Structure formats: structure tokens, C-alpha cells
């Protein structure tokens, strides 16, 4: 099936938002999605954007029964390793179920790797839920290593009340 990968435009945020929700449903956490296309528009299309996004589009004759031609996306941003330097983090990679197995996911991920390498990034990082075997297998097949299993890395997080409390204790300037 013919498909095209291109940089997302502001107008694509409604489709990206739709697919973010579809991915959250797949990850069994739809109630966790708190942002809408408005935040995506504000945060991805300013002079210093918080993220970049690529979308996968199919020609009109392959659109979904609901009329969508945007059938996949990858959302990523630049990070920094104090050991190795510039890196890229792939926050989301998603292809609508009917369009899987056609190389679209691989195409999106390869494009992020290419963009990263052009910007002199030396790492591409992401996270996967431990029960998500299809995705784990996909990434390992692409050469990714599971650093949690291999080296013992854990992600920790402050949010909500714990983040407010921590911030209140900052020294005065």
C-alpha cells in the first residue's frame, strides 16, 4: 500500500489527538489523556517547540470508513545525555490497526532516526510497557535494547501534589 511520511502541520493536530486517544485505549489508560489538539497546536508549533511530529498519510482510495487518510504518527523531541550528547526520544509511535503490517510503523521510526542522525544525535530512546509484547518484539527487532532489563534503569516521576510540594521548597532567588 502506498503511504507518505511527512512533517505534521498545525492542521493535523486534530488527527494526532484522535490517534493519541486510540493509542491510550490500546495501552489500557484512556482516562490518562488530559490534553487536546489545542495544547498540541500551542506546544508543537511555536518558535521553541516542545516536540516534533511526523504523520503517515495514505491516498484517498485507502481512507478509513470514517474518512481518515492520516493513519499513523510519531511524536518525538530532543534530549541530552551528559555522557553521550544529543539524543532523540520517541514519545509515541502509532499506526491504526487496519494499516499495520505494511511498513508504516517502521517507516515512521526510521524517519525519526534519520532526522536525529542529521542533527548529530547518537541515541534514540523510547519506553514500552512490559506486557506489550508485540511492541517490545518490534523494537528489539529494530536493534533496541531494553535498558530496564539489562542495566536496571527505572523511570521515576513527580506530578500533581508531589510536584507542587517539591517546587514550594525551592530556595528563594
Amino acid at each position, binding site marked *: 500500500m502506498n503511504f507518505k511520511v511527512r512533517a505534521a502541520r498545525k492542521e493535523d493536530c486534530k488527527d494526532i489527538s484522535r490517534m*493519541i486517544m486510540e493509542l491510550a485505549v490500546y495501552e489500557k*489508560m484512556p482516562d*490518562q*489523556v*488530559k*490534553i487536546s489538539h489545542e495544547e498540541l497546536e500551542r*506546544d508543537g508549533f511555536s518558535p521553541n517547540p*516542545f*516536540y516534533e511530529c511526523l504523520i503517515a498519510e495514505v491516498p484517498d482510495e485507502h481512507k478509513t470508513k470514517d474518512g481518515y487518510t492520516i493513519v499513523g504518527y510519531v511524536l518525538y*523531541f*530532543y*534530549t*541530552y545525555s*551528559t*555522557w*553521550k*550528547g*544529543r539524543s532523540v526520544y520517541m*514519545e*509515541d509511535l502509532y499506526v491504526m490497526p487496519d494499516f499495520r503490517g505494511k511498513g508504516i510503523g517502521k517507516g515512521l521510526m*526510521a524517519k525519526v*532516526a534519520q532526522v*536525529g*542522525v542529521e542533527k548529530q544525535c*547518537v*541515541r*534514540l530512546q*523510547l*519506553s*514500552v510497557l*512490559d*506486557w506489550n509484547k508485540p511492541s*517490545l518484539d518490534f*523494537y528489539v*527487532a*529494530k*536493534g*533496541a535494547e*531494553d*535498558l*530496564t*532489563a539489562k542495566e*536496571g*534503569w*527505572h*523511570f*521515576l*516521576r*513527580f*506530578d*500533581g*501534589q*508531589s*510536584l507542587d510540594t*517539591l*517546587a*514550594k*521548597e*525551592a*530556595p528563594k532567588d
Partner: protein
Amino acid sequence: MDFSIRASTLEDCKDIARMILELAEYEKVLDQVKVTQKELEQDGFIKNPFFHGIVAEVPEQHRTKEGHAKVGYALYFYTYSSWKGRALYMEDLYVMPEFRGKGIGKALMSKVAQLGLAAGCTQLNFAVLDWNKPSLDFYLSQGCFDVTADMGYHCMRCEGAALEQLAQGDT
């Protein structure tokens, strides 16, 4: 002990590079560090910087025997959660051993949280090695939770030849 926290400047990169190596030694991976002072200067002080830094400084009378007054740092950058929006990632938090136990680490981390909230972030994320019990205990005591243990997220990475092959579409 008196100390002050401020945003890092280009001139701080030499001390930050020094402390990055000290932290890598603590994490038992000194040979892994490839970033130099020059790269820090290039990557942290451009129009769209790859990171931001804050440093902890002590007054002259508390300098180390080598004469260092910059005794701790935190390095962070902005990230994005497709569910929650703007977020912060704290890449490094470090205080020189003889300056620990004085609230400097906590002050650095709180400052990062404050800066993040001011920028509209709703999460402060970071990573810790599972054997690093002193750090894990410190962070958990400050109120964070373990996303890997509680939610099952694993960190994955592509680098070196695997990254090159992926970029060329060869996998």
C-alpha cells in the same frame, strides 16, 4: 552551610564537565562519558538549547581544597507527554560528596521543579539505577513514584550501528 543556586552560564561548563565525570565515576561508568566541556558549551547555549543547567555554589571560605566553589548541579530539559503535555526531564542531579547532607541536592531538585511549573510542566521525570539505593530512597522520600515498578514502563534505546541501520531503513 550557606549556598546559592543559580542558572548555569557558559563559564560554568568547565565545572559541570568536571562534575559529570565525578557522577559517572560514582555510577561506575567513567569510560562511557564522551561529552566534553566544548560540547556542553555548544549544546546548552544555542538558540534552541538541548538542555538547561543550574549550579550550587558555596562562599569562598567553603571552597574545596582544589579551590572549587561550584559543588553541585542539575541538568534538565523540556519534554512532552502526549497525554499530559509539557514535562521536564532531570538528566543529572549531583552534589560533591563532602557537601552532601546539607540540603543542596534537595534545593537543586526543588529549583528544577519550580522552573518546570513556571513553564507549565505537569511532570518532572528522571531515571535511577535499581541498585542505587541511596538515590532511590532520597527520591522516594521526596514524594515521587517509580513509573517502571508501578506502571511497567521499560526504557529502550537504539544507538551505534543499530541507530545507523534504522536511519538508513535497513532493519
